[in-house]
């Protein structure tokens, strides 16, 4: 790891100020991806701004909205009575991210800011049509994800919370990478007031994406059978030592069917 200066501001405003003052500064959330990256010397920030004291943790139900603070850990989401009541699929997803220790420290905001193509959360946020709150604005999920590790966040912009609408039905099914246990294919299906949405993580070449054909089929009938004949184009898929594009395309269908059955 290269050395850096460490700051732990007590508010979002201070954090923003620190990040704004130094273009080489980086925000630190749970650090579950960022610290390994630093250890591998793949990133050389001048300063690390730890958001853990900025008052960004917490879960609340406001009417028909579930609002999760950006620094809320996966373990907290997984065990939250509010989340379990409002969107149990989200608690289930959080409960299967990484391992127990990762869930102790990893956060929803960190996951979304990083937008790792094999992270679980982006699929839920996109499928549920959630809204990302930042210190500057509110961004719709459809506008937020912009390809692998790319998001709508501007330099110095911090995610403060994520706002989820209620779902009539929702579920997440993941096929983990055998080695890393990250999602090799993860499919989140959701039926909300705005309709059916299907988001796929892990598989695509450009990070999380919506599966239009499946959404159309499930809008007609929200059953596993409805998507039996829906195919996923393999040329959109990743290929690596763990599986071909064709295999990933196939798994998208299998995971989607399992998610629909579970929803």
């Amino acid at each position, binding site marked *: 790891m290269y050395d850096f200066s460490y700051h732990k501001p007590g508010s979002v405003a201070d954090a923003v100020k620190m990040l704004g003052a130094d273009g080489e500064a980086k925000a630190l959330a749970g650090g579950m991806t960022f610290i390994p990256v630093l250890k591998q010397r793949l990133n050389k920030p001048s300063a690390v701004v730890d958001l853990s004291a900025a008052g960004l943790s917490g879960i609340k139900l406001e009417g028909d909205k579930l609002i999760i603070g950006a620094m809320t850990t996966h373990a907290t989401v997984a065990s939250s009575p509010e989340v379990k009541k409002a969107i149990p699929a989200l608690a289930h997803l959080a409960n299967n991210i990484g391992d127990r220790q990762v869930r102790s420290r990893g956060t929803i905001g960190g996951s979304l800011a990083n937008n790792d193509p094999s992270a679980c959360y982006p699929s839920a946020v996109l499928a549920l049509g959630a809204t990302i709150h930042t210190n500057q604005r509110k961004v719709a999920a459809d506008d937020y994800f912009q390809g692998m590790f790319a998001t709508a966040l501007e330099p110095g912009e911090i995610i403060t919370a994520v706002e989820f609408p209620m779902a009539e039905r929702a579920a997440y099914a993941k096929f983990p990478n*055998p*080695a890393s246990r990250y999602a090799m294919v993860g499919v989140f299906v959701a039926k909300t007031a705005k309709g059916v949405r299907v988001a796929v993580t892990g598989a695509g070449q450009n990070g999380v994406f919506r599966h239009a054909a499946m959404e159309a089929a499930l809008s007609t009938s929200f059953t596993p059978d409805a998507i039996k004949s829906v195919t996923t184009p393999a040329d959109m898929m990743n290929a690596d*030592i763990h599986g071909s594009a064709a295999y990933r395309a196939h798994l998208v269908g299998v995971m989607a069917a399992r998610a629909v059955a579970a929803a």
Partner: protein
Amino acid sequence: MIVDGIGASVKRVEDHRFLSGKGHYTDDMNRPGQTHAVFRRSDSPHARIKSIDIAAASKMAGVVAIFTGADLAAEGVGGVPCGWQIHNKDGSPMAEPMHPVLAIDKVRHVGDPIAMVVAETKQQAKDAAEAINIEFEELGGISDVRAAIAPGAPLVHDDVASNVCFDWHIGDKAATEAAFANAFKIIKLDLTNNRLVPNAMEPRAAISEYDISSGEYTLHTTSQNPHVIRLLMGAFVLHIPEHKLRVVAPDVGGGFGSKIFHYAEEAALTWAAAKVLRPIKWTADRSESFITDAHGRDHVSHAELAVAEDGKFLGLRVETLANMGAYLSTFAPSVPTYLSATLLAGVYTTPAIYAQVKAVFTHTVPVDAYRGAGRPEATFLLERIVDVAARDLGMDRVEIRRKNFIPADAFPYQTPIALQYDSGDYQTTLRECLRMADYDGFEARRKAAAAKGKLRGIGMSTYVEACGIAPSAVAGALGARAGLYEVANIRVHPTGSVTVFTGAHSHGQGHETTFAQLVADQLGIPFNQIEIVHGDTSKVPFGMGTYGSRSLSVGGSAMVKAMDKIILKGRKIAAHLMEASLDDVEFKDGKFTVTGTDKSKAFAEISLTAYVPHNYPIEELEPGLEETAFYDPKNFTYPGGCHICEVEIDPNTGTVAVINFTAVDDVGRVINPMIVEGQVQGGIAQGIGQALLEHAIYDESGQLLSGSMMDYTMPRADDLPNILVGTESTMCTHNPLGAKGVGEVGAIGSPPAVINAVVDALRDYDVRHLDMPATPAKIWGIINAHTLKMAAE
């Protein structure tokens, strides 16, 4: 009566320190004035080093010194030696290219060390290592053995034509060809034994020190055999005489073979300690382990089995290409040859066998022994081709094995391929394993699984292996450059407690418990009066270390021999004290007794007399009670048995789940059943890992694609089943304990059982063979291809 003796599941004495965080691993130690070393390594599989510029790096904060290959060469530092020499078919010796400690002129694999930075802190050493400016000319690398021997392939070593290290054979070629001429059918099979990364959980580490006043060097290192490191490094690389070089292997966090070998880092650190005149510590990062620890397996074979109409095996011929990596690691040449090809008879009476092995250099990490070393490769080949033969002949898989087993009354059994098995009973281990696994109930379980949409399969392997390495004269004739006996020194203290100094090294095997049980049993003294000392060349007289499942059969036998000497001397002292003749004094249950009388002396009385010789046969006997024994085994030992695996495949994803795994092994004498069971379970976990999960994958040019645990699948708790273990022992006939060894059986017997089960599960998908690992992607590929083919027809 000793309750903690042979056969008792004594809880381990090691555990308290490991469980309370008081283990003493190399990286846990620090020395006053210690510096830290980091190696700058090659990112390229094959390149010429045009220049190395250390000027800027040398000036960086905290840097003490930077050394390159040229610095070592200028002082006459030798290459890293190979401990085993194989001869070609024509009698000429194998190619043995120079393996410099730090690369000179060329780098030959990703991870090849180029420079060593010594600095005040590890981070400062890392900073400076990055800042060394090296100019490379890329030469293009090659990783696959078949490609490496093809015309025009880039050469790993300029003086090794076609990258062939040796071209060796064994067996009776004419007899084998005659057998094939008479065959009813010839079963042919191509197999690849997947390359593995050992990944002991403790990364390699070392601390070197030099005492300028005495001229002594000390190296603490993560080794399975510190005396071997001292011998190889002292005699061949650094030219330091043994009495000025101490090598210590303290608590070591797993080895599995990968910590047998003498590694370049050990030599570089030891050499440099005398240059910087401060201790130097180095600990590998895991990503560094992936590209520097010797890998395992990586054999590509073609096998043919000649069978008679009734299923009897008539002959076997095998051609293997074995990947050596870029340099010859310490025991690399022995693995595909004398540790593998000699085992091709397996548990069967195949009368004629001929094997050829071509060892090939590639631009990859050196390949050497990994748990099982050669025997898993032979067993996988054999147990796969036997299953394929059963399939092609329409025979039952159990029946074809039974028909060809070496019968229990045929021992000692001379195989046609060098080895003579001393004992075994393969029908019994098979029968017991079938019973424990409820083989007969399988079809019902298959149907139940099918009802849930799962493909269930069962597979077995019946195997024998050769371990207890090794009779020195035999090993020497086969190319070993060292003796392979073991040493024990037993020091009885005046009050009767005992310190045992053993050349075997424990890094998970629980020797401090097992050996103490053995000594307690034989000397009739309490278990807690015995201390086992290992792993330090300044304490233990000599030793060859722990590998090849040899610690009990060879190291334990040395202890028995030393104890025999102790008991004989004790009898002489007792005879003197009790005024009896030596022949009338017997030793039993910790007492020296005059036969037929109630006169006796306790062990501690005799030991006290030996050290306080007031009433003592001083004319005939020296005082003291301490004996050393070297035990050189008369033969290898031959554990064997049967493994049965039951799997379920999810056809939608290709995921293979191991539902049941049962092993019944013949490991000879068992000292501690609890530890034996643990060794078998651990070995099977690695075998299941090889069969389903693990694969070190290089791209064509020699870049390691599975270079971290993010891409190399380590078996985790939820990948594995409960493992049911039984033992059905016959005794080894040629060592005093009857011990055969247990460290490797799990890793040797299990992989073909898993793959045979997977192939069985895929019975409706026209699968004759599949190579390891049976990953979900591979299984789905097979299912999908078959489905598409059926749709097209």
